[in-house]
């Protein structure tokens, strides 16, 4: 087999090994590549930034542990932004692990905002079943739809913030962290389009192409695109974290994949039309 024939059929253990070695090395010794802010991420930041202090914003954690790497940094950065602006945050979710993800974010972010009190500045209502029907019922009566208890089992009666949130109309902005269905389309159909509530989102990179039509139509004002978007938002709130750290590794991984694709194609073009050496 000639060199170029071999180049088209590299054993898969070679890219696997190179990938894991390079990513591990870069995570230990980051390069520090600059993260540039794109217009769509900036639009999401501006959307939250113009909400008046003291207002209530609704964060929807519609993702699980599998998307944690991409979306948890975004949720933390958005919560930091909201608390820094004096906003009050209520977090819920249509996904069963959403409450846990919000709890992770809260336990980390509260260290930077010790003055923020649970029940007064922040409430985690956790996961409630129903998907788009849940959203429709929150529009009508939030306490009844959310069953009157939060993620930790506390009654809404013990949480002063919930006395001011009776329906989605009481939220000045909705920010969703989405990795699939139910997700952003349900919010747009049931809540943000009918009630004209500003809406931004953070999505996994694979979901971004499907969401772009809604960004372009103006139904969604800004979108954090995968871990790159999370890293950009971390830079915007001036608290670089795991997403920024992961961008070096992601850069190396993408570069490696492109190199292998090029090697495979050079090999393919070099041998196209020629008989394999083993048959000559």
């Amino acid at each position: 087999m000639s060199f170029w024939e071999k180049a088209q059929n590299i054993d898969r253990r070679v890219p696997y090994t190179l990938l894991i070695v390079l990513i591990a090395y870069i995570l230990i010794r980051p390069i520090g590549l600059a993260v540039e802010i794109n217009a769509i991420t900036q639009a999401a930041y501006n959307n939250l930034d113009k909400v008046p202090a003291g207002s209530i914003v609704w964060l929807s954690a519609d993702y699980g542990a599998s998307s944690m790497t991409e979306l948890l940094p975004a949720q933390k950065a958005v919560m930091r932004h909201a608390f820094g602006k004096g906003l009050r945050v209520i977090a819920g979710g249509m996904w069963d692990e959403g409450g846990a993800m919000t709890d992770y974010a809260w336990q980390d972010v509260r260290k930077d905002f010790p003055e923020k009190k649970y029940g007064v500045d922040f409430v985690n209502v956790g996961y409630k079943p129903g998907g788009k029907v849940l959203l429709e019922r929150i529009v009508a009566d939030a306490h009844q739809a959310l069953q009157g208890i939060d993620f930790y089992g506390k009654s809404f009666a013990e949480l002063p913030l919930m006395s001011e949130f009776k329906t989605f109309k009481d939220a000045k902005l909705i920010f969703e962290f989405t990795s699939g269905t139910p997700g952003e389309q349900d919010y747009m159909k049931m809540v943000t389009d009918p009630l004209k509530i500003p809406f931004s989102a953070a999505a996994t990179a694979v979901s971004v192409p499907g969401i772009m039509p809604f960004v372009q139509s103006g139904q969604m004002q800004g979108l954090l695109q995968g871990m790159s978007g999370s890293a950009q938002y971390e830079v915007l709130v001036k608290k670089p974290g795991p997403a920024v750290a992961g961008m070096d590794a992601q850069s190396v991984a993408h570069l490696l994949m492109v190199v292998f694709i090029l090697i495979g194609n050079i090999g393919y073009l070099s041998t196209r039309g020629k008989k394999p050496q083993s048959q000559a």
Partner: protein
Amino acid sequence: MRREGPVIFAALAGLAVVICRFFSTQALKAVKDELDQWYLICTAFMVLVGLINLTRVHLKKVSQKKEGWGYSVVLLAGMYWFVLFGLMRGSLGDPQYAWMFNTFPAPLGATMFALLAFYIASASYRSFRVRTAEATVLLVSAVLIMLGSVPVGKLIWSQLPGIRDWMLSNPNTAGLRGIQLGACVGGMATALRILVGLERGHLGGDV
């Protein structure tokens, strides 16, 4: 009646929801609220159905000692341990339950997704070949998007991030908008067929 009953019930429930969407009276609102409650209860029940089905499938595997039956034992033990512990102690508000969630499902879920990176690396190497014009377009698009999405892309060529944003905002949006319109029209047609009883696949069996 065995055949017509479910069809009539599905049609009436579907029509009720559609009518309630377009008209607003107290009576219709009460009907809609009741249907929504039934939907929420059924959604919660689906978890129970899933639990029973998983138990049935994996118990059969264990009893017949099929290949991989040991994994089925682990699955059943872990599943019922979480269910019983949660029923006794409460969910993630309980520190021990939270520890179990943080130690097992959360990192395992993240790991499963992380494995995709390796499969994608291998699959992209093998499938992105310039065999045809369409495959070449796919290859070039993929390379531009991959490099434009990461900081190193700007170091290679300063225009890459802009090209990537243009590709996502224009050809991608145009294509996906067409697909979503088609999917919506198809969804409406299917819904109408279910409402008038022409579509019975959702009823299962030989109805």
